[in-house]
């Protein structure tokens, strides 16, 4: 059972790697922003598979934090992309 689960984790890792390669190749910034999404689902799947395969329940907590911070990072991506922040308003009020 364990080796099947490791194999599945490896397969998902390969898919994440391929997806990252495709996403980062493209020139558009919006495509790059999807990277966090990809890790948010794929990385969580890899971690829960590893937790079951090695029978180490605490790894599930890492998956939990990964999910939380992937969403947080995606918000930071979207917010800091050019033209979508309140630069003009801020400089107007800033010292």
């Amino acid at each position: 059972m364990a080796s099947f689960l490791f194999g599945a984790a490896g397969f998902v890792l390969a898919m994440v790697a391929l997806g990252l390669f495709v996403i980062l190749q493209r020139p558009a910034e919006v495509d790059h922003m999807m990277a966090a999404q990809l890790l948010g689902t794929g990385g969580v799947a890899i971690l829960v598979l590893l937790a079951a395969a090695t029978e180490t329940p605490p790894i599930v907590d890492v998956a939990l934090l990964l999910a939380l911070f992937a969403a947080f990072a995606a918000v930071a991506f979207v917010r800091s992309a050019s033209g979508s922040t309140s630069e003009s308003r801020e400089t107007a009020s800033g010292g």
Partner: protein
Amino acid sequence: MKLAFDIFTVVLVTAGALFFLAGTVGLIRFPDSLTRLHALTKVDNLGLGLVVLGLLPQANGVFGALKLVSIWLLVQLSGAIVTQLIAGAVRQRGPQG
């Protein structure tokens, strides 16, 4: 009984892995950012759901299983909202942005 659980796990985790494959194929093949976003989010979330469902018999106790399901729900909810945000950025800047 153990064998039945194991078969359940193998079938569902394999199905989940295939959805990840489908998501990546969509990421490669689809022509523009919005459709790629669609492929990435919807299909990968379904894949994760199937993997989590498949791992439930292997989880340690009811609480372990509950935690797995709540992680999936968290990914599902935050993924859907974050996708909306990225799609908003696509609309604002045009597909080449």
